[in-house]
């Protein structure tokens, strides 16, 4: 981890400042929390289009004849069978099975892979990849500072983007990527996101970020959106956030994401034995969705309590849901809590506010 106390500015910092964004230090980067109303930003993504600066995310490239083999060894996913132009959601785990980060891996060319890491974990992921890839014929190159990442998310995203690119977006499937030109800027265009809506993530050279942002932000109906809206969007979509649902103390199984661990792949991978053992024992705690009956939002760290007031879980994320109009949360429940329980509450600063357990996600686009 960097000990540098001065947060970095993304290539779009001046644009955010000019828009009057509330800028906060997030994982060592000054990022827009919101521009005006985070609820309006959230709703724009659900109904039209929102524009996000995600340049704090890490872009790490692996290149070489054994890049795929190195990733198969370093990550829990099965990378070798991926076709060029495809993306995969996966994780990098510690030898004890704990999650170091959740990642998206894109296969850009036969021997070129892009690993996108969370801002808070870029150094951890890069260092682990360098170490784990050292016996393979591949280069690991952290190019996070050279790239800006701009996301256009929402049901109108494709129509808007098509005004500025000749890339065949209608043929680009979810979790796929192609290279093209958007508004005259060379971009890697990925149909991925973290909002529960259709949308695109555009990887561009840092120097081109302002030009691309201004073109997209200039489209009527496109709403610049901050991290606050991004958090409620991903929460409604039931997507985990590293540091909340996923930590180095959590396995993918507890988070309900055991499907990303590909034991069937050939060869050893870091964490395999520990994960196999912990998969067996995963009848421990489980991640669930909660909907509050009242108006108080369960928050990260609040205890979930049973009928007699005994703690039986912990909230990992929670917020008022703009789409549902009531507070929602994700929480880990102890194994002892019955599946059909209807007697849970969350300790909101000393008061037990009743909640209902629901299946994730809270919101699924139609």
């Amino acid at each position, binding site marked *: 981890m960097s000990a540098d106390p001065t947060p970095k500015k993304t290539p779009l910092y001046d644009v955010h400042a000019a828009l009057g964004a*509330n800028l906060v230090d997030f994982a060592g980067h000054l990022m827009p*929390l*919101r521009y005006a*109303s*985070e*609820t309006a930003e959230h709703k724009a993504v659900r109904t039209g289009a929102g524009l996000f600066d995600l340049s704090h995310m890490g872009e790490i490239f692996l290149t070489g004849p054994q890049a795929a083999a190195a990733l198969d060894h370093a990550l829990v996913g099965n990378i070798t069978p991926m076709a060029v132009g495809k993306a995969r959601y996966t994780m990098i785990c510690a030898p004890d099975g704990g999650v170091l980060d959740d990642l998206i891996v894109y296969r850009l060319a036969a021997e070129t892979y892009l690993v996108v890491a969370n801002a808070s974990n870029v150094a951890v992921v890069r260092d682990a990849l360098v170490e784990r890839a050292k016996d393979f014929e591949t280069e690991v190159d952290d190019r996070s500072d050279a790239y800006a990442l701009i996301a256009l998310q929402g049901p109108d995203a494709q129509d808007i983007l098509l005004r500025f690119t000749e890339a065949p977006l209608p043929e680009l499937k979810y979790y796929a990527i192609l290279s093209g030109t958007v508004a005259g800027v060379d971009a890697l265009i990925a149909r991925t996101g973290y909002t529960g809506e259709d949308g695109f993530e555009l990887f561009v050279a840092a120097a081109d970020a302002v030009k691309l942002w201004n073109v997209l932000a200039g489209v009527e109906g496109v709403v610049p959106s901050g991290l*606050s809206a991004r958090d*409620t969007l991903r929460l409604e979509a039931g997507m985990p956030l590293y540091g909340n649902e996923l930590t180095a103390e959590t396995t993918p199984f507890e988070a309900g994401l055991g499907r990303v661990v590909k034991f069937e792949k050939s060869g050893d991978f870091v964490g395999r034995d520990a994960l196999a053992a912990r998969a067996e024992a995963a009848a421990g705690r489980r991640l669930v969705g909660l909907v509050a009956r009242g*108006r*108080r*939002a369960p*928050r990260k760290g609040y205890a979930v309590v049973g009928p007699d007031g005994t703690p039986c879980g912990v909230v990992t994320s929670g*917020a*008022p849901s703009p789409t549902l109009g009531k507070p929602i949360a994700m929480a880990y429940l102890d194994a002892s809590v019955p599946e059909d329980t209807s007697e849970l509450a969350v300790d909101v*600063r000393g008061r037990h506010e009743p909640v209902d357990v629901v299946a994730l996600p809270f919101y699924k686009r139609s």
Partner: protein
Amino acid sequence: MSVPEQLRYSEEHEWVAGLDNEDRIVTVGITQHAADALGEIVFLELQPGEGDTVEAGEACGEVESTKSVSDLYSPVSGEITAINAAVIDEPKVINDDPYGEGWIFKVRITDEPGDLLDAAAYDKLTEES
């Protein structure tokens, strides 16, 4: 950000209006700076009701926004004479008009108010934060 000249401020980002009123009833709310920092306010609760007493500097309620929960402090000591039902009902009014329609409660002050800040001092406090 400039703050209204005629108000007085607490370090916990409440404002007080009407300290010179003959009936000793003052109006209390939270500042624009606080409202902006909290984000959109979705829930507001005052623990004491009308007729109850509050002590300066003591927590007397909670403000919950999309992102966080904060305690609300009374900047003065006295008896609560009114609570703004409109902001309890729709707390977002505080974001829209923190110094006007977004007032939160009124207090008949009993003790002389302590170290409240004038507008210039409050401006300085928020610039440093």
